[in-house]
């Protein structure tokens, strides 16, 4: 074969392989979503939202109400605590300390925390919250989620604030505004959708986390609103139920898995759409 033909063959081969890789990746996604939908839909019914997690072989099929509530509460507290911290820290990095050594260090450490194994965070919160408190609690679970939310919001806030045109900041400074006034009155409104995107991404990230909740919030088979006690939550319930031999528990596990996945996918898509709007705004508004 001529050299040219050989090169063409190699080209075709590798490009073909890349198509195979893409098809395989899409097939994997499809397989997982397909399994999730077929198993999960069977268990989907209004009682998921009206009944508590059942005991094995009980008369009532049961639902996931306490788990859904617990997850919602802990995620809400997690983002309420972690979100503002991340936004404020991102503001510092963007506004006050663009090039200081502290900022470089914070950025670096933040990126490490962003990819750190969440089980380590769970161990950390166990040591500083669960042990002194004397028992597992929903509060400890919420704090571990807050720690996981901070890196995401920090990163997005800093990036979004940096995107705001310098002209706006300069105009505000020229009028004599302090940085805090500029930030609150000019920058935050301008970067609003970006910051909200960051918060959405953080919520998407923490709602699916299981490992940290295993050592902090544990689980509970009843309805509970007490933050100082263990609280049911979807990921740990799924973990427990999926590994059990009871058919109705496994079905609830799949239904819960479908709920979590759909929530996170919707949040992720919403975040991307917001980002697209922001991109168009800043790019087109120049």
């Amino acid at each position, binding site marked *: 074969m001529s050299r040219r033909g050989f090169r063409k063959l190699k080209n075709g081969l590798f490009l073909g392989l890349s198509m195979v890789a893409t098809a395989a990746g899409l097939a994997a996604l499809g397989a997982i979503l397909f399994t999730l939908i077929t198993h999960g839909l069977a268990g989907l019914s209004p009682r998921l939202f009206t009944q508590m997690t059942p*005991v*094995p*072989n*009980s008369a009532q099929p049961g639902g996931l109400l306490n788990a859904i509530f617990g997850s919602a*509460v802990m995620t*809400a*507290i997690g983002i*309420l605590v972690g979100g503002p911290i991340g936004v404020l820290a991102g503001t510092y990095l963007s506004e006050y300390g663009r090039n200081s050594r502290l900022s470089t260090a914070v950025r670096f450490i933040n990126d490490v925390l962003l990819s750190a194994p969440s089980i380590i965070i769970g161990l950390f919160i166990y040591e500083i919250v*669960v*042990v002194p408190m*004397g*028992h*597992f609690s929903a509060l400890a679970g919420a704090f571990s989620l807050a720690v996981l939310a901070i890196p995401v919001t920090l990163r997005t806030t800093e990036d979004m604030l940096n995107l705001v045109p310098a002209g706006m900041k300069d105009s505000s400074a020229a009028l004599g505004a302090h940085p805090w006034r500029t930030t*609150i009155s000019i920058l*935050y*409104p301008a970067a609003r959708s970006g910051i909200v995107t960051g918060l959405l991404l953080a919520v998407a990230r923490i709602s699916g986390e299981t490992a940290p909740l295993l050592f902090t919030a*544990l*689980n*509970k*088979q*009843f309805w*509970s*609103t*007490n*933050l*100082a*006690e*263990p609280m049911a939550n979807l990921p740990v319930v799924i973990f*427990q139920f999926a*590994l*059990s*031999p*009871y058919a109705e528990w496994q079905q609830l596990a799949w239904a819960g898995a479908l709920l979590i996945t759909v929530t996170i996918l919707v949040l992720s898509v919403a975040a991307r759409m917001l980002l697209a709007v922001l991109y168009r705004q800043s790019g087109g508004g120049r």
Partner: protein
Amino acid sequence: MLKIMKHCGVAALSLGALAALGAEDITGAGATFPYPIYAKWADAYKKLSGVGINYQSIGSGGGIKQIKAKTVTFGASDMPLKPDELKAAGLLQFPMIIGGVVPVVNIKGIGPGQLHLDGATVASIYLGEITQWSDARIKKLNPKLNLPGTAIAPVYRSDGSGTNFLFSDYLSKESPKFSSSIGANTSVQWPMGIGAKGNEGVANMTRQTDGAIGYVEYAYAKQNQMAYATLTNKAGGVVEPNAESFQAAAASADWAKADSYYLILTDQAGAKSWPITGASFILVYRQPTDPNAVLAALKFFNWAYQNGGEMAASLDYVPLPAPLIAQVRKTWSTEISAGGKPVWTGS
């Protein structure tokens, strides 16, 4: 921006208020062995009294750890703690319910109760000496069964558990090689096989894997219609696992003489005894820091002693004999105190 912050503040305050209004449930943790019956009892008790008993089945090892760390009101363990360990930790233990551990298998064409094994053979399987179901030693015990050549996949408990203790204790009694190389404890180093978490995990893994053998508390095997195996007991007879054979094993036990109720029921004498029987224990503090919580827990246990027998029987657990229950109640009133006064004042 401020509007958003205001809304967040309101939300946080209302969550805080909700939290303050939350009712106190009693938390216990431990063995997965009695979990089906404890959960059933807790469910019924909550409907009757409104008190929630939140039992987390995380394994006996977990129960012991949590009660020692005082993160739960009561712990549950299938392996009784030794009297000196109890004294050192300031704990009290008492038996709650009796049940049996059964070997379960997943072999094509073999149904519940069809396969017959004995202790030595099971030990050899878990030691890795017997690797296929068609092995001659298994065939000898089952001349009439058509066993396929599938590879044996032993499943064991990966978490610390009393079920592990009972099973390894039985195998240690039946096989000197097992006793010397692996031993009996809540967590042992199995030389081969797959680990799964909790009775639930072992049951699930056994059901999923072709050619698997595992060991679970009988309620798990029964509720999921798993293929359990019959065993040869100490007296030489072939026994099926059921309430009768568990009770036969428990009948010969002398609880009055046991210090701190330390008694292991495996390999008991008796023609009808099931060789892997065991009691499940509750652990509480002798001088609890929260006497109200312990009292609420004791009330639940008392209710279970008096009214839980039928539910227990439906799952093939064996309730404690009446004299033993009386003995336990007496222990409650004499051993558990707070500020000089006994916590349990009922009868």
